[in-house]
């Protein structure tokens, strides 16, 4: 089966600009996750969707970050305006359901550099 797709793979912007990332999960996976991975750290969950509903966005900086999954399939994550500290790899992952024992499948990530 095809894996999780993400685009773009790399993005360089200046601070205060906006940027958007796209993710297409594995077909049939109801749960979609966006993670932020800062260099030297493990991934940190930003937001979790079950179908097209948000079930956890407690760590999403809502003043600048937004995400949507309108049709319960692909998703976009937006940052507006970007700050220097947003430089990181943004990982999208999906799983069959939100059951605690299900492993997550990750996309290749988008490396964002904010200058």
């Amino acid at each position, binding site marked *: 089966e095809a894996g999780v797709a993400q685009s773009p793979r790399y993005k360089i912007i200046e601070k205060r600009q906006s940027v958007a990332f796209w993710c297409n999960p594995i077909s049939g996976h109801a749960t979609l996750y966006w993670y932020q991975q800062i260099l*030297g750290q493990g991934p940190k969950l930003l937001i979790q969707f079950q179908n097209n509903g948000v079930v*956890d966005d*407690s760590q999403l900086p809502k003043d600048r970050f937004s995400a949507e999954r309108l049709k319960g399939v692909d998703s976009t994550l937006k940052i507006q305006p970007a700050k220097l500290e947003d430089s990181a790899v943004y990982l999208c992952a999906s799983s069959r359901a939100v059951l605690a*024992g299900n492993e997550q499948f*990750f996309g290749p990530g988008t490396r964002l550099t904010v200058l």
Partner: protein
Amino acid sequence: AQSVAQPEDQVNVAEGNPLTVKCTYSVSGNPYLFWYVQYPNRGLQFLLKYITGDNLVKGSYGFEAEFNKSQTSFHLKKPSALVSDSALYFCAVRDPARISGGYNKLIFGAGTRLAVHP
């Protein structure tokens, strides 16, 4: 609060030797534990998980991990390391009994870089 610790930033091992990457966790209930591997410029790849049952879990590429409840550890092991095993390894924990916003988070450690030398 649930947490994961990977005490070693880097592990160096010679090819053919056994390897161990350490992980300890803290959760309030019975943990679900995972190991992922990350190769350069790629996303995380699932290796293995412990949910319940046998404490020794076998996974992909010859890796295995041992769940030790008394030591709250879940160390990753391989009997004979390959140069191609060189990568970044992440341990993660989920507490199925702990609800946050209705669903429980997967918490990752900071990662351990494994370097296997020829």
